[in-house]
């Protein structure tokens, strides 16, 4: 029995090979430490904080609670894929403009969660927004400016 595992992941549309992996590694660890994608943040490692939020097969999950070795043939999208060619997405822009970014540690997870919400529900009421971001802890903003940022995106997208 070999001491390590080898597998292939599809991350942000690219096939990435993982070799010498340990069977118990989380997707968060593999993204950050093996694939050079540090956007998903490592804080609690128990699904409490949401700072490692990513999409697996289009579903919002905490990357720390996903076993990387069980992700073959699944589509993984991280915060790095949200803007086009290095520019910010509309949600990221709105976070900056609304002052919803303070220390910034929770921001990538919140941005992924807000993209997921607005893709499913383009015009959420405030309760729906609060529930959708209830798994993302922010210890700086008090959430008011995050709610403002989401409202800005809803308004801007609605104008199109």
């Amino acid at each position: 029995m070999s001491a390590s595992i080898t597998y292939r992941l599809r991350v942000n549309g690219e096939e990435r090979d993982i070799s010498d992996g340990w069977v118990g590694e989380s997707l968060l660890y593999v993204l950050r430490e093996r694939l050079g994608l540090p956007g998903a943040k490592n804080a609690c490692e128990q699904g409490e904080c949401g700072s490692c939020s990513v999409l697996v097969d289009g579903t919002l999950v905490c990357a720390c609670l996903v076993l990387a070795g069980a992700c073959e043939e699944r589509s993984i999208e991280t915060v790095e894929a949200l803007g086009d060619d290095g520019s910010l997405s509309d949600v990221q822009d709105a976070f900056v403009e609304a002052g919803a970014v303070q220390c910034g540690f929770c921001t990538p997870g919140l941005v992924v969660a807000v993209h997921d919400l607005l893709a499913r529900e383009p015009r959420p009421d405030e309760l729906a927004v609060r529930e959708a971001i209830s798994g993302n802890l922010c210890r700086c903003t008090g959430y008011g400016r995050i709610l403002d940022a989401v409202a800005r995106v809803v308004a801007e997208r609605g104008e199109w």
Partner: protein
Amino acid sequence: MSVVAPRSFEDALAELAVEPDRHTLAGGTDLMVEVNFDHRRPESVLSLHRIAELREWATHDEQLVLGSGVTCATLERPPFTTLAPALAQAARTVGSPQIRNAATIGGNLCTASPAGDLLPVLSALDASIVCARAAGTRTVSIHEFLLGPKRTALEVGELVERIEIPVAQGGQEFLKVGARNAMVIAIASVAMIATSIDVRIALGSVGPTVIRARGSERWIGERGFDPAVIDELAERVAGEARPIDDHRSSAEYRRHAIRVCTQRAAQRIFGDGL
């Protein structure tokens, strides 16, 4: 070391028959925490995520049959809000949207935490748990399945295939108290299920596993329900809790929370609301 992810339940059982010590991975929201904190070092893993049949559900003859891989995110939404309202309410209180997208009913059962949110509802509904191995299946009552904190009747080489509960016939409520509304492990919870013939009440987080308040159920069954009995019912139910002091709450507060949740559940089901 390896991760296997078979596409059919039959193949999963065959894998387990060959290598019974494999760690079973459902949603991962419990197992991965233990792995991340080095409380477990899995050598090999059986992941169930590719098995579409485990995510299926159906109704047959007033029974709701749920595959063990049905997620909390599925259970919190229609049609489960009418087929199994208390289960939907409980599912909606689990963790966060991210957790509910991953966490499964089978995982909640097999982790068997004293604070497992779906468990009081399944107990109050007298759920049947269908356990499978390569050689065949057996059906175990929820009351025999949950043995104690993190202990179940699931045997080596078995997987939970499905859970069977009755479709709701009357009022159902699930109430949970925690330090805040979201992302919280229960300090105390109450599931109350009314049918045409009885009222069932089960309590979470106030004992080594779920407690059915059978004395109170018998009392209300004989006494009959009217709004004047709510306070005494709540007192009796709180008396059947067996809470402890721990880092999350005191036993005294837990018993108080059971009393209040029972009052509110009874008011919502039988009274004109709250």
